[in-house]
């Protein structure tokens, strides 16, 4: 017996140096307020890239741009050879099926059980048998150390559990690219280390390309192949963990050494802001 109608899909071993995501000269703004300035970034297939920076440095805005949730004011983002700023809706939908996103708070739908939340992408985008979907969901719950929590509602989970359930949903379709926003935020140290290990295992077993946005140094140093440091909307350094640690740029060193940044104040502008509209 043989299956003659099967596709002749050949396994393509991606080259280690194959660039999967390319960000070119990206500017992004909220109204008049410019957030990202001339971002240049590339992510290789199977790489874990950590985007680091303090609060307000533009990390989340960069993530939103990479997900196609925000249109840049200048520049372009190429993912898997597609310009996400110009592709049509259908192509974007197809691309999104190869991407998983784990949001900071889990972002589960509160009206559905944890299991149904995780099953949702499979039910929407595949015609898999319900028994296969059910086993896939339990496999991911096991992986996230959430076995037995399938029937609970999101409101019954702790913050760490919500995060892991969100990750389970993000990887349920074994995405080619995983975006992970602040994996360690709000987690106890042990859970945080476990999550880091899980990220490394996912990459190893599934050859996933993973982009992590974080300001947690320990986590970044554990999982990153390369780190891009954002400061005030600009990438001030991209490099391996060793290169980042050895970087003598004051803005990078301050982040690594947890040194508060010195805010330069223009006296006149400051006074003007404080007194604008006042008599």
């Amino acid at each position: 017996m043989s299956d003659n109608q099967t596709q002749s899909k050949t396994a393509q071993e991606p080259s280690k140096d194959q660039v999967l995501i390319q960000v070119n000269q990206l500017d992004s703004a909220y109204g008049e307020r410019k957030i990202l300035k001339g971002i240049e970034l590339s992510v290789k297939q199977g790489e874990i890239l950590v985007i680091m920076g303090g609060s307000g440095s533009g990390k989340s805005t960069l993530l939103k741009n990479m997900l196609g949730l925000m249109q840049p004011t200048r520049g372009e983002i190429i993912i898997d050879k597609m310009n996400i700023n110009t592709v049509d809706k259908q192509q974007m939908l197809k691309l999104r099926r190869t991407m998983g996103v784990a949001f900071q708070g889990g972002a589960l739908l509160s009206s559905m059980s944890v299991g149904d939340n995780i099953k949702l992408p499979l039910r929407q985008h595949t015609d898999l048998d319900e028994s296969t979907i059910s086993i896939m969901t339990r496999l991911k719950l096991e992986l996230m150390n959430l076995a037995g929590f399938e029937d609970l509602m999101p409101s019954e989970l702790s913050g760490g559990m919500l995060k892991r359930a969100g990750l389970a949903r993000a990887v349920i379709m074994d995405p080619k690219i995983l975006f992970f926003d602040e994996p360690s935020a709000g987690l106890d140290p042990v859970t945080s280390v476990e999550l880091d290990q899980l990220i490394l295992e996912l990459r190893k077993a599934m050859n996933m390309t993973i982009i992590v946005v974080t300001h947690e140094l320990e986590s970044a140093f554990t999982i990153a192949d390369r780190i891009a440091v954002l400061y005030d909307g600009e990438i001030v350094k991209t490099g391996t963990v060793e290169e980042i640690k050895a970087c003598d740029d004051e803005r990078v060193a301050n982040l690594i050494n947890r040194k508060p940044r010195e805010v330069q104040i223009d006296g006149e502008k400051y006074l003007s802001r404080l007194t604008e509209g006042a008599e």
Partner: protein
Amino acid sequence: MSFECSDHLNYKVLHLTGEVDLSNSSKVRRCLLDILDNGQSVIVDFSDLTYIDSSGMATLVEGLNAANKKKLTLAIANANGAPLQVLELTRLNQVFNLIASVEDIKE
């Protein structure tokens, strides 16, 4: 992805080639469940399998469960590289009967 079946002793050997993923795991599932429904034990041969995703793994789990219920055997032969890593990641290497080669199956 392609697959073909052959016989070895009193087992069916399901030889998978290429990548098993969301787009084709349903075909593997039908074939696997058909073999078990016919009352035959099965060896899934991974020697030419380059990738298997969680839908493929779930299919094998479903097959193993069906085999156990029918008191049949489902074994995996020649698991190496990425497919073995997926088995290890999901800890299913502790669930399946993994054998080094099809010839290593015990009657």
